[in-house]
């Protein structure tokens, strides 16, 4: 049986005019009227414990994926032709588009239409999906504990609410230090092992090879690479609706001052690695770039088209004297199972396959698999591809276990807060250090708007 593939995300843009907001709101209202449902709001199950599946009638398995994960769903359909699948592509909630949440809140009002399984490129979906009654619990009998123990340490932390697992992590995005090995050798530079060495090298590059970059501070995930790795307490999620925000501690200020020094001497870019400016003017001048595991394939190989045998990966620098190595993390998608699914068995089988199988995760997945056995296969695949200048296996594997657990996964997007609050002011010439209080206030505001209790 062939899978039906259609795009729903495409409808989101299109014939929109200034009235879109009101029309969208009006659309919600009309839908709600025609559905004539009783009380609006949450659909179905409550968050904790009492999960009551709907009548299991089977039928078509509806799967929502982004375009990057489309091959995974198609591969499953080819291997399991007996499963009737409806594969729908959407934007994967990329850049915090909120498409999934918007749709689920509409489905909750109309009380139908939920997909059975959804992939999201965001790792914080559980924070609202549990509250909205959309995510079904996955441990406690649905997926065997022996399978669940195969995930990397802490990989499913963003999926866990009050001890119950509500999603499966697709990939890890541990930060490492990518660098151009031939260039480093040619200029006689050592790969820095401490942030102090990193800063010193940046000052050297600025004078000896002006124009070359050792990092970028222009991406929305800048805090997740640098501040997270530096153990800055800006995002200590202490409970399902509680967060402690502190940006004035030494772990934050030391990294802010490092960034300020390197931004000032221009060895650190203020453009996003995905901006046209970076692609055109800076992609050929990257000496080092601190970033997540997917930078190798997605940024260097895919976007910059850096030739083979140049890019290598080293562990992210540490602060000298710090005995517990730490790194940051940028994203890493998740798979959610709908609590409204009438096809839980088939949906669970698909979710287990798509997150653990070597056929997909080990061989064709673009990012570092969160399931350890698949990660081993994936790393072997990367090593045999011959793209990298050295073996990146050890670096990525070690970093996978070093993601600092003091930075949580809240409902509000730290990337969005940084992008709107800090980035424009850096562009205007302010320093990270001077913006730490404003950054904190913005986090506090957005956390409160999502109903978080904030401690400072």
């Amino acid at each position, binding site marked *: 049986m062939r899978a039906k593939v259609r795009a729903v995300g495409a409808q989101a843009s299109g014939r929109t*005019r*200034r009235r879109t907001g*009101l029309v969208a709101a009006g659309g919600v209202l009309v839908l709600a009227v025609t559905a004539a449902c009783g009380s609006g*709001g949450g659909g179905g199950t409550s968050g904790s414990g009492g999960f009551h599946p709907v009548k299991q009638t089977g039928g078509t398995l509806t799967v929502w994926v982004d375009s990057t994960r489309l091959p995974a769903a198609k591969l499953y359909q080819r291997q399991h032709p007996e499963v009737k699948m409806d594969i729908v592509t959407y934007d994967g909630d990329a850049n915090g588009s*909120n498409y999934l949440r918007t749709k689920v809140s509409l489905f909750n009002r109309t009380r139908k239409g939920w997909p059975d399984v959804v992939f999201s490129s965001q790792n914080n979906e559980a924070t609202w999906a549990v509250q909205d009654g959309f995510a079904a619990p996955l441990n406690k009998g649905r997926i065997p504990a022996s399978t669940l123990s195969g995930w990397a340490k802490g990989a499913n932390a963003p999926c866990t609410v009050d001890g119950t697992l509500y999603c499966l992590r697709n990939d890890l995005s541990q930060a490492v230090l990518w660098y151009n090995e031939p260039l480093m050798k040619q200029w006689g530079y050592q790969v820095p092992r401490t942030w102090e060495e990193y800063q010193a090298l940046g000052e050297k590059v600025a004078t000896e090879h002006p124009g070359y970059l050792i990092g970028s501070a222009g991406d929305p995930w800048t805090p997740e690479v640098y501040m997270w790795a530096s153990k800055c307490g800006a995002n200590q999620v202490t409970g399902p609706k509680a967060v402690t925000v502190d940006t004035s501690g030494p772990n934050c200020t030391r990294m802010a001052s490092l960034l300020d020094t390197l931004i000032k001497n221009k060895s650190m870019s*203020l453009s996003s690695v995905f*901006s046209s*400016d970076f692609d055109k003017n800076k992609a050929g001048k990257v000496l080092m770039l601190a970033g997540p595991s997917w930078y190798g394939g997605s940024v260097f190989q895919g976007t910059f088209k850096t030739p083979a045998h140049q890019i290598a990966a080293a562990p992210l620098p540490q602060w000298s004297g710090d005995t517990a190595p730490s790194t940051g993390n940028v994203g890493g998608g998740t798979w959610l199972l709908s609590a409204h699914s009438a096809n839980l068995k088939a949906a669970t089988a698909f979710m287990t396959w798509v997150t653990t199988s070597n056929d997909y995760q080990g061989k064709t997945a673009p990012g570092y698999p969160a399931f350890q056995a698949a990660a081993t296969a994936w790393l072997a695949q990367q090593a045999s591809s011959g793209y990298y200048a050295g073996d990146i296996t050890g670096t990525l594997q070690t970093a996978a276990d070093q993601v600092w657990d003091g930075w949580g996964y809240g409902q509000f997007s730290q990337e969005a807060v940084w992008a709107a609050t800090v980035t424009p002011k850096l562009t*205007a010439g302010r320093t990270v250090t001077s913006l730490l209080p404003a950054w904190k206030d913005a986090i506090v505001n957005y956390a409160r708007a999502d109903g978080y209790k904030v401690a400072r």
Partner: protein
Amino acid sequence: MTAPSTGASRAAARRTRTPWPGSAGHTFVAAYTVLLVAFGVVPTGYAIYFAFTDNADSFAGLSNFSTAFDDFRFGPAVGHVVLYLAWWLVSLVVFVVGLALLVHRMAMKGLSRLLRFLYYVPGALAGAAGVLVWLFVLDPTVSPVGFLLRALGYHAFGQVIAPGHLPVLFTLIAFWTGAGGWIVVMYGALNNIPADILEAARIDGAGALQTAWRIQIPMLRKWIVYMVILAFAGGTQLFVEPQLLSQASNGVAGRDYSLNQLAYDFAFQNNDVNTAAAVSVELLVVGLVVAGVFVARSGFFDAD
């Protein structure tokens, strides 16, 4: 129905038809009314219902309005929209009237048709597509007028979309996508000014500027008021420009910029449809009040 043949019945038919002097008009209006009720009145009514209830459907008084008012994004969003409206309305009135007068004066020189076409072309692009064009125009790296941006000292997209520039940028985009239609409307209105009045002015010694200032603009007044009312309502609902800019810049500029975006965020990010409805009701009230003031003070419905 075929026309009756006798004079008496013809008279009878005329009598029965008098209460409906324009039945075709009513048919058209009826179709419009159905759409207006389905997509205008009912959603508005439902939004008002939402605005005064909580998520358990019980009466909530003004609490949704105070939630919106107390939100940290509300004040800045009001400020953004007011600033944008100031830029947008002033530039719309000045340039649309000015360009329409220019086109009208050129009517005799044959350039007018070409200009009218040029003004209208951007408006023919759908709104969102027009905004997307601007996202490229404003990026110095890929812009066809990148040299202009660089001459002004802007070398990266991030510098162009600095927070202080946004009202002007949104005005530019909105003018480019929306003003062309108004220029054509104003041109049509200028053509309705009787030629003998203009001739009388010329005989009395009025030049182009004096004719425009003393004859044409006063006679365009109602059209200008009409444009301002609609542009004000549209401007307060600013949404597409900041929303697309926000997506294009990965959230660096344009997030939570306007009130409509705030309503959208309340509904879909904070899962609070009631507060979202309260914001939309506020926009409705402001739009109605301003329209009322303009209509009353301009004598919009007075017969000439």
